[in-house]
């Protein structure tokens, strides 16, 4: 009986924790997207006003910020300085794949970040500015969808974890 009780408690708490972790991941994604906006705004200033070359610009922005997105920029900058890739696009894509592994961002976010790598650094300042603006508009969509997800599902996953645990316990018992 005691063994059963302990086992049940373990099952319930484990699935409960899983639920909480998943719901946390959802709200973390939103936070990271907001952080991404902040970081990109800093990068925009470096690019459009300072006309700083990207390896330097990316590095200095990453120094001023933290989190996975900041590490992503540092990563791109390192690739460029070391000439591990010939084009910014390749370095950007490679680092974006890593960002997918290391952050709570989902595949769709990463694809959208990747698409910006096609444009970054490839035109004059005026044009870069336009693309940054476009980037923010798209980013808004991602943020909105992330927020919605948080509202809709975070609470659900949290309780779902416990309920599922209970159900499993009941069935097994």
């Amino acid at each position: 009986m005691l063994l059963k009780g302990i086992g049940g408690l373990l099952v319930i708490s484990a699935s409960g924790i899983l639920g909480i972790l998943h719901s946390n991941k959802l709200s973390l994604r939103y936070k990271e997207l907001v952080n991404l906006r902040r970081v990109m705004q800093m990068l925009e200033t470096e690019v459009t006003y300072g006309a700083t070359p990207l390896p330097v610009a990316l590095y200095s922005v990453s120094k001023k910020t933290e989190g996975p997105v900041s590490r992503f920029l540092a990563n791109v900058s390192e690739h460029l300085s070391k000439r591990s890739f010939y084009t910014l696009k390749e370095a950007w894509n490679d680092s974006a794949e890593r960002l997918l592994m290391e952050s709570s961002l989902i595949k769709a976010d990463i694809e959208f970040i990747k698409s910006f790598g096609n444009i970054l650094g490839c035109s004059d300042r005026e044009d870069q500015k336009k693309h940054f603006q476009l980037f923010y508009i798209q980013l808004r969509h991602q943020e909105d969808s992330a927020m919605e997800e948080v509202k809709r599902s975070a609470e659900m996953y949290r309780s779902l974890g416990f309920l599922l645990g209970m159900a499993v316990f009941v069935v097994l018992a």
Partner: protein
Amino acid sequence: MNNNFNISEVLDYLPKHIKTMVIRLSKESLQKIEEIRLRLAKPLCATGCCSEIFIGADGEAEPSGVNAYIINEDDLRYSMQLVCNFSMYSVEEELKNGFVTVNGGHRVGICGRAVIENGKVKTLKDISYMNFRVAKQIIGASDKVIGYIIRSPDSIYNTLIISPPQCGKTTLLRDVIRKLSSGGEEKLFRGMKVSLIDERSEVAACSLGIPRNEVGMRTDVLDGCPKAEGIIMMIRSMSPEIIATDEIGRLEDANAITDAVNAGVKVITTIHGSSIEDFLNKQSLNRIHKEIFERYVVLSRKNGAGTLETVLDGKFNILFERI
């Protein structure tokens, strides 16, 4: 100056596979390279010292160019990314002039299709030709000449360097500026304030405002400014003792030079021509312009670029003649 070192700086801006091809060339050829040219769908080519070599995929020199490595679009795109440091926007202004100055003062000429806005070149696209020009900063190029230019520890002669293109005129001017600006052992020369008007960014090779070539510690560089205007600006703003500029030719330039001399500033400049007669026959300059100089230095490339032919004083007496 070791040219191997220079060339490796330039090679850093080429894609790795092209770099390895060039590096496999013989040492003598590497030493001589003045330009490396990439042309879309044409053989990879290096020129220097009156010769031209096409380079094969295995790094063999190909005189005929039949088996040479053919440049493709990716090669150009990669080099372009490396040259502009992955950031086209940071070389916007340079692109309008068709060249980018990279670390070490090397010039990369870029050519493709021009995008025009309001009758002016806005930028270049479809880049299909690139010319990597190895900057020949030769420290000590002016060793033979400097003695003729310095008058006393705190003064120099107004000097004109006459030379055909590609004979080391700019190289000589740069080294003269460096010596005059830094001062030093020669006749206990103390060093003078030099204002350099570098209209085509060839002398100091400024990039991002920093001279990539050594032009001395008392030199102020006005980069990219038209000479006539620049000379007047510098006289007013920087109180120079010496005005240095490259390639005077137009009347306005000569007038500005005369103004500078009248203001008590010493002048060092260069002009195209192969002899002192060429200079005296120039239609665009009048007698006054032709009398302000106190030293004439004539160059040729008889014994390689930068051969000193003659040095004359203001009355055309020969002070030095190549035997």
